[in-house]
């Protein structure tokens, strides 16, 4: 039970690692090398996830004054947490669809369809991110 709980907690890393891997692929394709950016992405995302989890656990939000650096950091952490959630949901959906379409058959076709599933995750996450940004812009978050 405890092991399962821990495994569920570590599942958050999967979409972050996937995002970092995609960054690495894009860098490799465009620059011909991979910088530290993907590693930094994973570290910062995990730190922000920890911050948002801590804030939620101790209920610190009402005690932080809006407009202060701590408030901005907190909002950044919460937005990051939300994006990780979006990535996780889209990753799970795409992989479930892929496993149904290409059930346990390895070979060029399965790998190609997996590549398409990965591309679909990027596109769907992009669309969701765009809508999230639009919604928060209307709520004055980006002002």
């Amino acid at each position, binding site marked *: 039970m405890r092991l399962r709980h821990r495994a569920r907690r570590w599942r958050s890393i999967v979409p972050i690692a996937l995002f970092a891997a995609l960054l690495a692929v894009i860098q490799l394709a465009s620059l011909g090398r991979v910088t530290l950016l993907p590693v930094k992405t994973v570290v910062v995302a995990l730190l922000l996830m920890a911050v948002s989890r801590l804030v939620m656990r101790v209920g610190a*939000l009402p005690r932080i004054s809006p407009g202060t650096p701590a408030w901005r950091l907190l909002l950044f952490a*919460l937005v990051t*947490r939300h994006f990780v959630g979006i990535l996780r949901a889209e990753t799970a959906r795409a992989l479930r669809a892929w496993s149904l379409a290409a059930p346990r058959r390895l070979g060029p076709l399965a790998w190609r369809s997996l590549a398409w599933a990965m591309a679909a995750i990027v596109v769907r996450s992009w669309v*969701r991110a765009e809508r999230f940004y*639009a*919604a928060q812009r*209307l*709520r004055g*978050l980006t002002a």
Partner: protein
Amino acid sequence: MTPLVAVQHLAYAFDAEGEPLRDVSFAVDRGERVGIVGANGAGKTTLLWCLLGLIEGRGTIRIDGATPGAAVTTTIGAVFQNPDDQLFMPHLVDDVALPLINRGTPAAEARAQALATLDSLGLAAAAHRPASRLSLGERKRAAVAAALVTDPQLLVLDEPTAELDGRSVRQLIGLLNGLTVTLLAASHDLPFLAAVTSRLLVLLDGRLAEDGPTAAVLADRALLEQAGVA
């Protein structure tokens, strides 16, 4: 009296080939409840995004006399198709209070106002729960609360009944019919539009094919079939 929303010759193109909006003109008076109906890809969401100032088309848009960019944060409350795109704070009350806090309202006052808004929409019991723990119907109503908390003149809803079950749709209809705010709702859910709006704009391939009373438009079967919604 000048209309609250005035759109003239609005056109929008993604690229040289795709033009989801072509020469759309209409006006919405204060207190009116208008539905935008059309098939998938007819241009409903694009029209709403132009009104919200999120994308810029050709032609003119005035909301309470101002351009969308300037008007948007003070005049319009928007409810997106997926409430998860709006709600991300630890507690619902924080989510609803956020637009007020972003506009400079003191935090305590913003939270009190948010609680009052949630209470008025029957969500007081959910105020201190995260939005992710609520049902989709509750999240939709919470998104409406987050849009209404700033007391907007115009409430814009994009596919408000998408993925909702019958009971949640009925609750949403009851909620919207209890509001006095000017309403602009894009949907292809005809029974919902019949229950909530008094006027319908029919979009067909990016053009305004019809603009008339809801009952009259819904009675025109041939038009609805041509528009791909019946």
